């Protein structure tokens, strides 16, 4: 049995406290009226803060921005412009919270999908890692509930993150009126509850079967687990796709991409596998998981490598078709990102593709733990930036910046994630000893 080291517990709590303080500070430092925005912009002229870029913006191009819900009425008018920036700045702490919350939520969801794939494919190499995966998926419950709350706040237009949730905007927008049958507060919330309910139900049931199998004399529970995993995967790939439209793509409700669901899934699964590798190496360094050998790490690193390329393939496929076709309503999505988010937009391709491909290409390096850790951290950071570039252009626009609200949101959810996951790992033996493939997995070598 694993016991949670008190240092790790303390570390997680410290992260949560620092993060929570930073989040509160982020909300408090948000301007509440246009006069304060004016002051902030005046003072930031000196230090070249990104707000300045907004100030100099041509207002005709800002017109398409959905962030403030007044897209129709923005004219070359000082007050309207200040109001626009005010809404962007007010969106910023909420967006930071949303991105960080989703990042850690999607890690646990990605691990859940990977776990289901392992069981449904009757993989022989991975059963020694099942308890690690089960530990990581425990974050699905708290993470999912926080996600649902944040989603509710946005979907019912409390924090103005979703432009489609603003009745004033819909009144002037034919396209949103047409989409309102699908994109409306209750629609999104009911779907989210069904999706989260299904994912968490699978997680709990498969966990129960896995524990029952430990002391079973035959493969009864494993067979049940196999069936439910296969069923879950069908449920998952549909719900994950719809979830990505509802929770992420709807930030830009005029724009749509048909491979968005796959694209989000690719990021999700690569983050999930990376986290499995990182948690495994942490536990191994503490002297647990004696059956996990170099070959298991090697296989995880191969998956990290492969899914990084898969992510890039989808990212590029989405980009190239839209870039080549150059249809105005589609291409604005990338024009905004390349003009206002150049560094994160291209930086994430380096972090999510070029770095992992070069570091993890050599077969021997995939067995060197610190190499895998290094690649893993860069991949996770890269996918944070990926989410940042998905959400921020629509909510914060040119007023984006990576500062206290963003950093503390990540720290808070990182602390919560570490606390929940490592506490869950103490609940059961770290070896799923009843799994019929456990011997094969123990003897696995490359």
């Amino acid at each position, binding site marked *: 049995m694993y016991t949670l080291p008190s240092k790790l517990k303390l570390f997680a709590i410290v992260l949560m406290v620092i993060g929570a303080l930073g989040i509160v500070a982020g909300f408090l430092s948000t301007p509440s009226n246009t006069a304060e925005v004016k002051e902030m912009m005046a003072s930031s002229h000196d230090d070249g803060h990104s707000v300045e870029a907004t100030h100099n913006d041509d207002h005709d191009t800002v017109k398409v921005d959905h962030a403030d819900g007044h897209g129709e009425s923005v004219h070359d008018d000082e007050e309207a412009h200040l109001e626009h920036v005010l809404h962007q700045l007010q969106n910023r702490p909420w967006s930071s919270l949303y991105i960080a919350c989703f990042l850690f939520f999607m890690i646990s969801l990605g691990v859940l999908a990977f776990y289901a794939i392992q069981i449904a494919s009757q993989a022989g190499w991975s059963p020694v890692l099942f308890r690690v995966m089960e530990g990581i998926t425990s974050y699905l419950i708290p993470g999912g509930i926080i996600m649902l709350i944040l989603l509710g706040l946005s979907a019912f237009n409390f924090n103005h993150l979703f432009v489609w949730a603003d009745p004033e905007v819909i009144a002037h927008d034919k396209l949103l009126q047409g989409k309102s049958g699908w994109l409306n507060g209750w629609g999104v919330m009911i779907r989210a509850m069904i999706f989260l309910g299904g994912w968490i139900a699978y997680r709990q049931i498969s966990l129960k079967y896995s524990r029952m199998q430990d002391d079973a004399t035959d493969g009864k529970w494993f067979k049940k687990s196999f069936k439910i995993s296969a069923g879950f995967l069908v449920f998952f790939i549909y719900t994950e796709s719809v979830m990505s439209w509802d929770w992420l793509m709807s930030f830009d409700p005029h724009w749509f991409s048909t491979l968005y669901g796959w694209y989000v899934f690719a990021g999700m699964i690569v983050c999930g596998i990376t986290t499995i590798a990182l948690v495994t190496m942490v536990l191994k360094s503490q002297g647990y998981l004696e059956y996990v050998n170099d070959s298991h790490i090697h296989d995880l690193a191969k998956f990290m490598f492969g899914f990084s390329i898969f992510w890039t393939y989808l990212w*590029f496929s989405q*980009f*190239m078709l839209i870039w080549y*076709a*150059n249809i105005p309503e589609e291409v604005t999505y990338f024009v905004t990102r390349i003009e206002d988010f150049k560094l994160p937009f291209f930086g994430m391709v380096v972090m999510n593709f070029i770095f992992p491909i070069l570091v993890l*290409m*050599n*077969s021997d390096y995939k067995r060197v733990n610190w190499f895998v850790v290094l690649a893993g951290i860069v991949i996770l950071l890269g996918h944070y930036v990926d989410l940042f570039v998905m959400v921020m252009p629509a909510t914060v626009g040119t007023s984006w910046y990576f500062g206290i609200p963003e950093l503390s949101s990540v720290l808070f959810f990182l602390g919560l994630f570490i606390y929940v996951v490592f506490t869950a790992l103490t609940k059961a033996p770290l070896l799923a000893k009843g799994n019929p493939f456990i011997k094969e997995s123990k003897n696995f070598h490359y």
Partner: protein
Amino acid sequence: MASKVIHALYTDDDILLQAVKRVREERYYIEEVFTPFPVHGLDKAMGLAETRIAITSFIYGLIGLTVSIVMMNYIMIEDWPQDIGGKPSFSYIENMPAFVPVMFELTVFFAAHLMVITFYMRSRLWPFKKAENPDVRTTDDHFLMVIDTGNNDVEKVSKFLTDTGAIEISLIDKQDDH
């Protein structure tokens, strides 16, 4: 000096693998092992040097990437520039996204084909080459180990090989290389 080799036949890959390990422990020299399918871990057991095919593959991939860049630059930018999709920039870097599929395909094409050709050359394989395996049964279900007797006592070696699970042992005068 006409040295002699022993051909020892096995019928199971696990027994063969154990035999290879034991023969090497006894410091007999294994010239070659013929198997009907790749036996996992046999190369390590025989003490063969690590393959360098991966690094050649990487180099070939880079060559393919370079060829594709030079080729697309010549075809699409220098030799016959066209205005496709309203992008008449005639600059390689600005049109680069359209060339990425070509860059990817040629990287894979060069890496794969040149790697196979390298493998054939390194293994001395070419069309119409006479088969080298000494016993046709190694293409079906038998495994054959070739041991150089050197200065060892042939009787003793044969006895030892029978102990390792060989089903058939024959002493052959070594032929000259092809």
